[in-house]
């Protein structure tokens, strides 16, 4: 049996019935990483020894009759989650040797169940990017075609699932950073409602948009993992004190009379043919299962990308001010004096895209420009939220593409940041609205590249999109296709 190909729920059954041990599963995944990661570069840090130790502990726990859904399950985390004792780089030279003194809450919740951490996953530096090419540790490659990008910024989280290097992973999504890589790598990626999962211990990119979510092989796993990480955290004031429903209970194969909106602004002429075909096919599938489709309008969609790149960069310019070489992280050794030490540390430590966004954000907040840029963007954000509220008066969920095209080639868009920014055009509005969205595998491209389908729900409407995604998954087998590595 190829243990590394299993889902959480499949492995859980085997562990619980003692047919397989966590040590065996962990060994299988470590071997798989060893065999494949030179081609994928999904991992920044592999923690083999710690993982084996954790697996032994998990086996003892299972032996004593305690087997929670994640006990003994080998997982990996985007390198943006702080892990006590294991370095957290955020794919930056700045934090190359940073070892955090505490765990991110989301990981702490998984750890409590006995999840086994295989290592830390590659990404765009400080989560800034859509291709995972902006990493100080080299680009991650798409397991379906290693000449292509896996998407970003949680490219490692999706690539590791597609390359069967982890049973499940966590990513973060600020403008599509979970859903877009999931789409490009043929996995399930869920961006929960803002406030559903704690951001404590997650390195901040844009605080009002960042949200933690699972990347998994199927919808059942997404529900399981969300169940583990969701809930109020007293250490994060923006996490919401709302009861966490039983997400697994929502997994019913039933979309009868479910009203699904198709935002006309997302189905524009000139949409990539493969993407259009995947959407048409998905709509036909769901319709045949009894769902009803309605065209809706999200009139301010055209402004979303501009709005996002003002708000996200403004917040980033402030969030990244703490990296100046005084207390932790990279410090320029040759610098003379304070100002030089700070500016040189930043010059050496940050990559080009991070610098670009810090400058954009600093500009947007500057005296004399604040009203025209930051404040205006906040107003547009309110209008975009209103668009979604209006749409959800007519329909239960929305169906859209995740990305305008399947995964593009490595290097194809690095010279043109604006083209790169536009690859998040269908995912960004969900972050601005603060609501939830899931990417699930739909019909692949003619070339066999994965294409994702996005279902968007009301704020805290994760159950509804999970149910619809689950139903879709029951009648299709795209999520079972595996990258030939």
């Amino acid at each position, binding site marked *: 049996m190829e243990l590394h190909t299993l889902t959480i729920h499949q492995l859980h059954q085997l562990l619980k019935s003692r047919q397989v041990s966590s040590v065996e599963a962990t060994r299988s995944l470590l071997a798989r990483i060893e065999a494949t990661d030179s081609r994928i570069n999904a991992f920044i840090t592999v923690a083999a020894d710690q993982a084996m130790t954790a697996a032994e502990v998990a086996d003892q726990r299972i032996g004593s009759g305690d087997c929670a859904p994640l006990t003994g399950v080998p997982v990996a985390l985007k390198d943006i989650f702080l892990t006590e004792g294991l370095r957290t780089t955020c794919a930056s030279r700045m934090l190359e040797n940073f070892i955090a003194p505490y765990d991110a809450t989301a990981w702490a919740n998984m750890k409590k169940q006995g999840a086994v951490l295989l290592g830390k996953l590659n990404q765009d530096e400080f989560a800034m990017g859509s291709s995972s090419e902006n990493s100080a540790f080299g680009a991650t490659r798409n397991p379906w075609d290693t000449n292509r990008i896996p998407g970003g910024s949680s490219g490692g989280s999706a690539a590791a699932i597609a390359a069967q290097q982890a049973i499940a992973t966590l990513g973060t999504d600020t403008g599509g950073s979970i859903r877009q890589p999931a789409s490009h790598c043929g996995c399930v990626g869920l961006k929960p409602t803002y406030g559903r999962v704690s951001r404590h211990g997650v390195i*901040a990119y*844009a*605080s009002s948009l960042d949200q933690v979510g699972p990347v998994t092989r199927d919808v059942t796993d997404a529900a399981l993992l969300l169940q583990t990480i969701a809930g109020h955290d*007293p250490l994060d*004031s*923006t996490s919401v004190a709302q009861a966490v429903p039983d997400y697994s209970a929502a997994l019913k194969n039933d979309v009868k009379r479910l009203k699904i909106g198709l935002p006309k602004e997302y189905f524009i002429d000139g949409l990539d043919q493969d993407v259009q075909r995947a959407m048409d096919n998905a709509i036909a599938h769901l319709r045949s299962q009894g769902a009803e489709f309605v065209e809706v309008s999200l009139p301010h969609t055209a402004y979303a990308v501009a709005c996002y790149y003002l708000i996200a960069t403004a917040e980033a310019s402030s969030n990244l001010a*703490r990296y100046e070489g005084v207390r932790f992280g990279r410090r320029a050794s040759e610098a003379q004096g304070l100002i030089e030490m700070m500016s040189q540390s930043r010059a050496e430590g940050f990559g080009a895209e991070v610098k670009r966004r810090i400058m954009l954000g600093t500009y947007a*907040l500057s*005296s004399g420009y*604040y009203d025209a840029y930051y404040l205006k963007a906040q107003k547009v954000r309110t209008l975009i939220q209103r668009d979604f509220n209006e749409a959800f008066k007519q329909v239960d969920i929305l169906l859209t593409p995740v990305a305008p095209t399947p995964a593009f080639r490595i290097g194809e868009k690095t010279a043109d940041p604006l083209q790169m920014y536009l690859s998040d055009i269908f995912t960004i509005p969900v972050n601005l609205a603060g609501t939830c969205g899931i990417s699930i595998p739909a019909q692949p491209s003619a070339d066999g590249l994965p294409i994702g389908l996005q279902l968007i729900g009301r704020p805290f409407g994760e159950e509804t999109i999970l149910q619809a995604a689950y139903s879709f998954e029951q009648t299709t087998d795209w999520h079972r296709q595996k990258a030939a590595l």
Partner: protein
Amino acid sequence: MKFQPVIGLEVHVQLNTQSKIFCGCSTRFGAEPNAHTCPVCLGLPGALPVLNRQVVESAIMAGLATNCSIAHKSIFARKNYFYPDLPKGYQISQFEQPICEKGWLEIQLEGQPPKRIGITRIHMEEDAGKLVHGLGNGSGVDLNRAGTPLLEVVSEPDFRSADEAVAYLKQLHQIVTYLGICDGNMEEGSFRCDANVSVMPVGSDTLGTRAEIKNVNSFKFVKQAIEYEIVRQIDLIEDGGKVVQETRLFDPNAGTTRSMRGKEEAHDYRYFPDPDLVPLVISSDWVERTEKDLPELPATKRQRFITQFGLPEYDADVLTASRPLADYFEETAAFAHNPKAAANWVMGEVTRALNDTTLNIENCPVPPRRLADLLHLIDQGTISGSIAKKVFEELWQNDKEPAAIVTEQGLAQVSDSGAIEAVIDQILAVNQGQVEEYRSGKEKVFGFFVGQVMKAMKGKGNPALINELLLKHLKG
């Protein structure tokens, strides 16, 4: 040309909460460098602020006590700038929508009518850490203070003299210490002040260019700094120069101010709402509860002391200077039945004795109840006022009851006319010359006889009775 100074004050009040404003670290002063730090106040990646409710409570109290309106919704903002003592590269403060706005305090200078000083706003913010220099190999950063809660109280530019500014400061200081939200220690920086000073020709309605003076941490220095700055600016203008907008540092040793940074070097703080903190919503219920629990404020207490105890304004002023002093007096007065005597003793003997030591009223060795007992002994005629002072000294040193000391040391007043007359006879007999003088009309010698009799009786004679009997014998 005559000039009119225009002054506004920004006061930083350090709150005395147990823990910091956005994390659970202790705010205690004087610990090992960086002993009171955690990921939040160190500004580590991934750490998030969580607002301390007690800080909000203190801000509401300060706002209510200074006649501010309390905002139903207020917002925390980031003030961005780089400095090694500022761990996150920004300070969490409030900018638009602070917690308190539009308040006032009334000051009164001697011989002048009361004057109302506007308070523009009060907002909450976190303090920075501090740099430690002279460590040999570079400087150190101590972040124990980083995240200590502060209130910034911003006044309108309503002051026209340094004295007005000082009167306001003293009153504000009194209020925050009365509220118990600040220890008021100016030397340790718990209550510090920046002054915005400008001058304009008398009769003008256009404000002059202002200079902001930093680092003035005593009432005396505030007066000195403002007065120096007024003269500096007037001299500058009269010499044909121009005041430039700048930040100036007060030098307490020289009593002068000097330029720290000009307008060109002023920071662009790029304030924006902190996305890590949700808007702070304060229910009217919360405000009402706080208002109900507000301690009696100095002005109210002063007025009550005048009406309830019949004290003169001066006494009421002195006794309400601090809440512990007022409490001490009030407790004494409650037991003593003679408020004026209690006031005199608290302002006199007690204060004098405290001044001679390092003690303060909160740990005064003579508790109010005992002082009241002492006053009782005077009232009942058991001891005289001068004997009472001796007993008080004894009480200061020893943990004993006043009555016990009087008995032990035989200090009880002698009111036996026979005993007093015996002494008088003796004194008159040996001082025949003075008796003659008195009888020939030089009544001033009377005091001499009182003194002699008192001395002979070791101060224990009943003074009224001595007077009465002496008069009888001398006239006799």
